[in-house]
């Protein structure tokens, strides 16, 4: 009986020692944190904000779990769940990160296409303006439209700056607005030209 008690005591001691050895999964923490940081650095917050936020929240939850285990009695510390959570965070962050370039590329493509269209529309408006006969009654309109085109041209460098700053969504909006206004100017020039033609016809 004495021997049995002795073995039981030793067993209990071994259990204590083993449980006391459970350590924070530092490597897993670092890996998960790095994966999330990499995702953010790649533009996750800008291009896939919701998924990035989810991954970030899950990382916080995993760190909370570690905190919970840290404050437990040595015998009952168990980081398995935290490790699992961290592994999931790392995998999710890496997955979302792989989606960022395509989203970014798509946004960039849209912005550049918009910029091209805006420039083409301004060019067309300018070409039309140079051909417009400055006749009686249309001169004021043409003068005003020259001012309009100048204003549109002033906005093109702002558009370029937005693209350089990789602010593609706002750049696309700006490009769209410039194109629409430039097309409007072209239409007005055509109308002004019609006005002149109409008056010339009346003189005959």
């Amino acid at each position, binding site marked *: 009986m004495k021997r049995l008690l002795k073995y039981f005591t030793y067993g209990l001691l071994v259990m204590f020692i083993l449980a006391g050895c459970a350590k924070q999964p530092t490597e897993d923490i670092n890996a998960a944190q790095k994966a999330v940081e990499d995702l953010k650095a790649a533009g996750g917050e800008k291009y896939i904000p919701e998924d990035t936020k989810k991954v970030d929240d899950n990382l916080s939850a995993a760190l909370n779990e570690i905190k919970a285990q840290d404050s437990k009695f040595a015998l009952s510390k168990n980081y398995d769940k935290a490790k699992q959570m961290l592994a999931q965070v790392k995998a999710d962050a890496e997955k979302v990160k792989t989606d960022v370039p395509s989203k970014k590329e798509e946004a960039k493509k849209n912005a550049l296409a918009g910029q091209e269209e805006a420039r083409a529309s301004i060019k067309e408006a300018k070409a039309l303006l140079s051909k417009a006969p400055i006749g009686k009654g249309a001169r004021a309109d043409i*003068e005003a439209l020259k001012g*309009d085109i100048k204003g549109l041209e002033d906005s093109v460098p702002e558009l370029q700056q937005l693209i350089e700053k990789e602010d593609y969504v706002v750049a696309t909006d700006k490009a769209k607005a410039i194109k629409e206004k430039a097309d409007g100017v072209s239409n007005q020039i055509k109308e002004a030209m019609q006005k002149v033609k109409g008056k010339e016809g009346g003189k005959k």
Partner: protein
Amino acid sequence: MAFFEYSDKRNPKILVTLGFLLSLILPGCSPPPLPPEVGLAERMNHDLWKAQAHVYASEEYQSYKTTLKNIMDDLIREEARFIWFRDYEPIAERLKAVLRDGEGILEKVQERKEVKRVNTTRQLSDLEERLTGLDRVSLTINEGRLARRSLIKAALMIKEAGLFLDRGDYEGAASRLTMASGYIKASEDILVPIFNRYTDKTLIKKWRRWVDEATAESREKGTSAIVVSKIDRNLSIYKRGRPFKTYEIGIGRNGLSDKLLAGDGATPEGSYRVIKKLFRSRYRKALLLNYPNDEDRREFLRLKKMGLIPKRAGMGGLIEIHGGGKEGMTYGCVSLENRDMDEVFKLVPLGTPVAIVGTASPKDDISITPKKVGDD
């Protein structure tokens, strides 16, 4: 070893049995599950972020996050307690309360967002209306490129604001509208003072008088008269009191204003006469006017006395009707295309009355009152 010795002495069998029981019970005993409110509160936190609570209810959201964090810290402390002593009930109750707060914040966010949407939409339509008014004014008074440049930039910002609104980004839309407001203000600063002169009934009456006097003289004496209408950018020749021919003109860079002093770039308004015909001029041919006349001198002295003109300022002079083209801007003279100047030069003798007015034909459609920024 005293414990074992002591136990051994009492009842070693009981101790061993207890030990076995403990070793069986402890690993088999699973901790109580975390209250479901933990997950719900975390999801609520995400929903609040998604609804932009950090923008529309930042203080409340911050307080929600702090409370939640405190509860989570307490939860961690509770989890650290020995299994048999863990009690999640108080934490669950606190989480229920924080969830109710979250619901309240979410509602508040939706309300504030709606208010923002309505206000931004209204602001957008107000600015659009103001822009349309100024656009018409700029075309009516032929006032040019600078005002138009600002107007088109305002139009671009308004368009962008519309796109932000469509995306539900009301803050972004509002910031674009603020910029649009700035551009509108800039164009108003150019247009409104000019506009006000051209709607001033006393001035219009004076201009009409000058035109009437010039044309009446032409009719009575059977001679020519010149009427320059600055806003219409034209010069009309009258013969025997009747309009004979009209030419397009260019005026000073600040031409729509009345000339007050030398170097202001304005084209004078008044009743003048051709006092010299210059067959050779820097600008082909020229008709020199008797600017400043007596009325101009009186006005100049009056304004100087009032301190509205610098003490050292001069009145300027050598105001001509000359060639050189109508497209360029002059220092205050009236310019015509060379071929038109040749014609005018032939038609006009010395002493011809010249009425230079803001407008010779006041229009009703000029009475568009542009609302000033900040009027509402």
